[in-house]
């Protein structure tokens, strides 16, 4: 036990409460005593006692049951043991009905009290461990990076809290870089499934057959390369949450398979005949316009309605510019720590540059920009100069560079990307960061222009 549990003994008889307190202290508890119900309620307002021993009959207006009821109004989770000198079945039943955990007739055998207290405290310890775990996870994911003072984002945070306790499927929509996975994690880690796995799958990253076996698993020999049995992500997420990112990109066959899993909560491994039952919460995300895809016939409408039970739409960063200073400061703190840079803040001029930008890559692009500025920063504050890479024309003016007037925009983009990849020796992640775009956007461009790597 790191922190000691606190117990309040409520009894009008001084010797009774002092000796009981002494006995409980010997067992390692922190014990306070009061002589009447009114005082007990006062103490309950100031402190959070795990357990109350309350005498049933006390002079002074408020009896033990009333005291218990008031205490429970303040602390519904507190355990109450009602003490009485005479066993009367009626009051015992009344006390238990009103929420007393136990009802004991004094004097009782020390072993009885000792077992009773340790049983109650054991449950409290377990509950606290769970809460601590949950708070830890929640701190990590709930608040982490979903920082906002924007009212629309606050509505989303409220929605996250509301849906975290449900089992319903959630569809998260938003441009790339808006933090869809963070929202999914926040839902998972603030709900009952927090202690169970959160498994993320990017549906766009894999070919159809691979994605199928990735999601549902496969039996040995089910296809070339399936040299052993493999569990799928749905099985791995059992009891927890599966996060299907870029759901808008999956093939018609997989759409059908997924629909079956959502409807029946069962699946077959690829090449397998045994039906597996799974209890998995599905959170899907996409940056595509799914209703449009449904209209166009490229996305099944029945799957769309299955996924679309609860929809969370994350606004792009340009629609919540009020969050830019907050997020920027947060990234400075986190990244300067990670990168070991002594930077603590951003100058006003620097902030102005960040606020004026449209951020097509959203929060992730902002994070990348801060990271890049931190790497080159020489002082303890990020200044306008550190963000010059975001301001091409000014950079051009200072270096004497003139933009070419004989090229199309595509040609300019192609040559800039080619040059940047040359500079980073083909490292796409680094090139994307330096270009101020996210990796998938850069991949798109590389494909589009057929740039060799």
């Amino acid at each position: 036990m790191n922190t000691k549990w606190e117990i309040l003994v409520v009894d009008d008889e001084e010797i009774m409460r002092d000796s009981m307190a002494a006995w409980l202290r010997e067992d390692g508890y922190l014990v306070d005593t009061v002589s009447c119900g009114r005082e007990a309620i006062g103490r309950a307002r100031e402190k959070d006692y795990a357990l109350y021993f309350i005498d049933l009959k006390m002079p002074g207006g408020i009896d033990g049951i009333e005291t218990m009821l008031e205490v429970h109004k303040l602390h519904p989770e507190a355990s109450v043991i009602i003490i009485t000198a005479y066993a009367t079945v009626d009051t015992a039943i009344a006390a238990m009905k009103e929420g007393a955990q136990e009802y004991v007739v004094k004097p009782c055998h020390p072993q009885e009290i000792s077992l009773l207290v340790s049983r109650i405290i054991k449950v409290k310890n377990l509950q606290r461990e769970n809460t601590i775990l949950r708070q830890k996870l929640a701190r990590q994911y709930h608040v982490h990076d979903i920082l906002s003072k924007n009212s629309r984002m606050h509505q989303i945070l409220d929605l996250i809290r509301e849906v975290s306790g449900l089992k319903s499927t959630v569809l998260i929509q938003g441009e790339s870089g808006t933090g869809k996975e963070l929202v999914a994690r926040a839902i998972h880690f603030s709900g009952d499934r927090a202690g169970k796995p959160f498994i993320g799958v990017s549906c766009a990253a894999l070919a159809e057959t691979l994605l199928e076996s990735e999601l549902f698993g496969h039996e040995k020999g089910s296809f070339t390369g399936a040299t052993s049995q493999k569990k799928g992500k749905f099985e791995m997420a059992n009891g927890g949450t599966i996060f299907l990112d870029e759901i808008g990109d999956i093939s018609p066959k997989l759409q059908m398979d997924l629909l079956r899993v959502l409807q029946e909560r069962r699946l077959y491994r690829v090449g397998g005949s045994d039906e597996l039952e799974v209890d998995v919460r599905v959170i899907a995300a996409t940056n595509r316009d799914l209703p449009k895809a449904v209209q166009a016939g490229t996305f099944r409408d029945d799957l769309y309605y299955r996924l679309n039970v609860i929809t969370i739409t994350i606004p792009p960063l340009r629609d919540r510019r009020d969050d830019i200073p907050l997020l920027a400061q947060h990234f400075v703190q986190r990244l300067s720590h990670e990168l070991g840079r002594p930077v603590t803040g951003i100058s006003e001029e620097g902030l102005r540059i960040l606020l004026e930008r449209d951020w097509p890559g959203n929060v992730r692009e902002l994070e990348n920009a801060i990271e890049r500025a931190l790497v080159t920063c020489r002082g303890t504050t990020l200044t306008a100069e550190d963000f010059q890479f975001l301001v091409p024309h000014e950079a051009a003016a200072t270096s004497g560079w003139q933009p070419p007037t004989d090229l199309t925009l595509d040609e300019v983009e192609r040559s800039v990307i080619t040059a940047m990849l040359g500079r980073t020796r083909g490292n796409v992640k680094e090139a994307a960061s330096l270009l101020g775009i996210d990796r998938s956007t850069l991949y798109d461009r590389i494909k589009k222009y057929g740039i060799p790597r």
Partner: protein
Amino acid sequence: MNRLLVVSFGPVSPDLLDAIADPVWRSYDLEVHRRAERPIPADAWDAKRQQHGSEVLLRTLLVGARDPGDRLLGVTAVDLCIPMLSFVFGQAQLKGAAAVVSTARLDPSFYGLSSRPDLVRRRFIAEVIHEVGHTVGLVHCAERSCPMSLATAVEAIDQKGEELCDGCTALVHDFKAAGSLTAETLRRSSRSQ
């Protein structure tokens, strides 16, 4: 050197009182001194329960002057209880100046069996180490063989050895190093009771 002053309430076998000096000194570095026997306080008697209240004995011990740094141990042959519990083997102030131990339930004769002075002696030492341990600041220990484990029956006392477990011994050293065995702490804790 800090002292443990032993007061018997009513007659208690001198053999028992002598038996604790060495174990107490070894466990807690306390010098045991016998004090004159005192009568059992009349208001400790509970006629309805035919038992004595340990809380009253504890309070009686604390009345009157004593040297700073001294602890008091009351020992009695009568059966003790507190209002909440049907009996107690003893009672102590956690990190305080006083403790009491009863020998009544330590003898098999209490349960209708024949008397076993050797057993009483062993159980008594374990209980004294236990209650004095509370005054030093130790709380109940999960180690069944440690005198600081909670016993609500003599069978549990019989599983205890005379010596504190390593964990409790380390705590006693820590308390000493932190000065909780000093006269100042004792004065404060007895005043707050």
